[in-house]
């Protein structure tokens, strides 16, 4: 099936403005007759819930954490892009649009990306009005920095805690609506299923994580703002609780899942130190502005390093391979994330990795410190250096940092049209949970922008267009659809509790993660992906036969929570692999060994793959069906990326 993304007609720059006028409105007095469910309270969820409540809709907001303020948006460090052009350096809405399309390796939808760039300016105004303490110049105006190799300074930031400050801003707006009685909060509550009636989303079934109560919530529309699925790899920079369950269960109820194989691997994370590792920690990309990436030229030296026979500083300059500077003379250490990540993998695969596991490269500040002095470096990166030392026990002022790529963000997600509506009418997906704006690769400082754009400035308009056609009456929660959905959830819980197998949930999760990282990680090939499908299917069978879920439903039960999430990750993992296998090209975060240029760069196949792959669930253990949304580029010329 070819999907209709409902892009409005007209020139790129006028689409959103015209469309805002053309969309139906809901009379202010009638808004209070509608109820909207928002699942997830990160940047997208909190901003959407607050904005919709301000408009007058009744909102129910759900999160699995103990407070909406904990959502993982809080961990974003670097900043948020906006085409303000405050620096007078040539930025514009079109330039931000262009950079995002190009950075996404021409696999995103022009109209959405342009709208994102367009509303980016309002986001900054909104956040400042809320009291978000962005960095400022001495004159009192906002400061900007260049981020992720962008040629203009358009990134707004609040030291290394931009995500935290933005989320707390959205959380404060949400809290205000809770106090106003327009938002009802459901913390420690997890969405277990989507309820559809006559093909429309009409509510959700949830589990109260403390009491285990299975409850139904009816609404006129459901917004999934549930973040990404990076934890399918077990080890990622995502929070421990980040999961795909809400999105996946919606997928099984008819929402198409788009481009699941597009995962972003962040090049500067703290390497894995052993099997006990539970998560990976990102070090801000800004470190690459001053740090130089290298490994020893020879395997012998690397081996000596690993055995701690020599120290990094014992290695002379001529024995060091500053491989990014060597291979990409013009961009050097500032090449895009995927390029930096892949090159780290290559040098480690050659046996030149520098830590005990052989999976780490150096990020060295020696030259920056001798050039600028320790004080200046400390002023720029002090908190990051402290964090690094806290985790590794090594002092990065004295010895180079060790870094390695880690899964960081997933560009894929639920397919949505221009209105952010999924293929299920009345079900929307916002933020990282949808696939829409980043194509095959996301630019630095764009995730925060997209989450807030969707929540503050897109959904408040587009949801009215849908609700205006909906009857006011809510479905009663004792409707057959809710009853049967509740029963299915309860049955699933009983099934999980009843297996009483031998292997722990983490054991399955770790094994899934290893398969995904090995075969569907930084570089993929057909042979490996084929193999992975078999491995995952076996793992799935074993899971449902031999998993051990302790305790009961009627209590706080971490095992049970995790079991649900891992079960869904296993199914998603298979879809990711199938998606990666079908996409016979390399683009952005999806790199297939078979498709690369002579220089080792990703080789796109625009003729055959300039589409969004939106997968449709057809039943358990039946292969998913591929639907396509053809991507048309009318405003940019498709070019081969080159960072030489």
């Amino acid at each position, binding site marked *: 099936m070819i999907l209709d993304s409902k892009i409005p007609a007209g020139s790129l720059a006028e689409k959103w403005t015209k469309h805002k006028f053309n969309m139906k409105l809901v009379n202010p007095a009638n808004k209070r007759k509608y109820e909207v469910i928002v699942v997830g309270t990160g940047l997208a969820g909190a901003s959407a819930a*607050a*904005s919709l409540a*301000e408009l007058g809709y009744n909102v129910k907001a759900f999160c699995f*954490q*103990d*407070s*909406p*303020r*904990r959502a*993982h948006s*809080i*961990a974003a460090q670097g900043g948020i892009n906006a085409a*303000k052009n405050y620096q007078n350096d040539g930025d514009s809405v079109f330039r931000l649009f262009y950079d995002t399309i190009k950075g996404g390796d021409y696999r995103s939808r022009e109209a959405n990306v342009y709208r994102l760039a367009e509303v980016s300016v309002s986001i*900054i*105004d*909104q*956040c*400042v*009005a*809320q*009291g*978000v*303490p*962005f960095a*400022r110049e*001495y004159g*009192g*105006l*906002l400061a900007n920095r260049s981020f992720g190799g962008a040629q203009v300074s358009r990134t707004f930031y*609040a030291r290394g*805690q931009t995500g*935290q400050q933005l989320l*707390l801003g959205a959380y404060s*707006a949400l*809290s*205000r609506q*809770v*106090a106003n009685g327009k938002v009802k*909060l459901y*913390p420690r509550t997890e969405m277990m299923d989507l309820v559809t009636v006559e093909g429309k989303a009409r509510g959700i079934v949830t589990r109260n994580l*403390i009491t285990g109560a299975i409850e139904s919530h009816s609404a006129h529309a459901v917004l999934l703002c549930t973040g990404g699925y990076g934890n399918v790899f077990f080890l990622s920079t995502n*929070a421990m609780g980040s999961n795909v369950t809400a999105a996946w269960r919606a997928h099984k109820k008819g929402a198409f899942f788009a481009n699941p194989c597009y995962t972003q691997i962040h090049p500067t994370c703290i390497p894995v*130190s*052993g099997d*006990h590792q*539970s998560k990976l*920690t990102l070090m801000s990309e800004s470190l690459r502005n001053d740090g130089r990436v290298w490994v020893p030229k020879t395997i012998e030296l690397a081996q000596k390093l690993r055995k701690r026979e020599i120290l990094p500083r014992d290695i002379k300059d001529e024995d060091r391979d500053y491989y990014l500077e060597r291979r990409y003379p013009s961009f050097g250490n500032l090449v895009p994330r995927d390029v930096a990540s892949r090159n780290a993998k290559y040098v480690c695969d050659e046996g030149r990795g520098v830590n005990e596991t052989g999976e780490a490269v150096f990020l060295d500040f020696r030259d920056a410190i001798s050039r600028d002095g320790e004080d200046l470096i400390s002023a720029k990166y002090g908190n990051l250096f402290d*964090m690094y030392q*806290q*985790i*590794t*026990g090594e002092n990065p002022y004295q010895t180079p940092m060790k870094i390695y790529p880690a899964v960081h963000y997933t560009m894929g997600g639920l397919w949505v049209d221009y209105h952010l509506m999924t293929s299920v009418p009345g079900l929307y997906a916002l933020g990282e949970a949808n696939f829409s704006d980043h194509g095959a690769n996301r630019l630095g400082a764009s995730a925060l922008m997209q989450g807030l754009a969707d929540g*503050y400035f897109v959904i408040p308009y587009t949801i009215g267009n849908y609700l205006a056609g909906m009857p006011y009456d809510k479905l009663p929660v004792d409707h057959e659809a809710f009853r049967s959905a509740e029963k299915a959830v309860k049955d699933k819980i009983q099934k999980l509790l009843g297996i009483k197998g031998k292997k*722990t949930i983490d054991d399955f999760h770790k094994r899934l993660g290893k398969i995904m990282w090995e075969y569907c990680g930084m570089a993929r090939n057909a042979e490996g992906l084929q193999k992975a499908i078999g491995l995952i299917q076996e793992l799935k069978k074993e899971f449902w036969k031999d998993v*051990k879920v*302790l305790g009961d439903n009627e*209590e*706080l039960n*971490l*095992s049970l929570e995790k079991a649900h999430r891992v079960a869904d990750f296993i199914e998603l993992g298979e879809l990711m692999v199938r998606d990666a296998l079908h996409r016979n090209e390399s683009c952005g975060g999806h790199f297939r060994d078979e498709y690369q240029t002579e220089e080792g760069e990703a080789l796109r196949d625009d003729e055959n793959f300039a589409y969004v792959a939106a997968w449709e669930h057809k039943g358990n253990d039946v292969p998913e069906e591929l639907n396509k949304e053809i991507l048309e580029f009318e405003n940019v010329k498709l070019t081969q990326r080159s960072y030489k």
Partner: protein
Amino acid sequence: MNLTLKVWRQKNNADKGSFNNYTLTGISEDMSFLEMLDVLNEELSEKNEDPVHFDHDCREGICGMCSLYINGKPHGPQQTTTCQLHMRSFKDGDTIVIEPWRASAFPVVKDLVVDRGAFDRIIQAGGYVSVNTGGVPDANEIPIPKRIADEAFDAATCIGCGACVAACKNASAMLFTSAKISQLAMLPQGQVERKERAEQMVAQMDAEGFGACTNTGACSAECPKGISLTNIARMNREYFSAVASSENV
């Protein structure tokens, strides 16, 4: 290294609860404290025992979800979050006592998990600027001196973990409440609702059953983000001038 853990176990809020002892062997000093607990939980699961429940999420020291009162200190011996505490801070053979946050406003949910909803309600009482989405001035129309912006930022870095309450001998939430009142009192955006905010947030803080401040400074000394006591002084000032001059009789 080998460790003895003395962990508070409590089935639910109604349960009385007690300490259980566990021994762990082969713990690496590179592990984070929570990874050490992961190991314990894997072992317990293998023995079909209920794992120890504790709150955690980002494991990067920013979400504020992790808690744990470790060896007599919130978040353990270092001034950081529990998730950023590493086992190299302990010695082979140590006994580690792990308790939940203790405060009547933070009821125990299970084992080491407590309910910190009181913090959300304090923010709901006024920890915001009442602006609706859209219709706000251009960001650069509100110039803010860098020093003020930086100081407001310092207050705004609070992660809402509750270590201040846990550390305070009076289970007082003044550091938490004052951080938000301070941030918004310093910024021009917060001026319009400045008085009401101080009055309402303090009232909510009291209603939740937190204790009073005796200026011991334990909260700030244990705060993983180093939120300063200056904020409490500022909150006092804000509150007194608000009740003295507001029109709320």
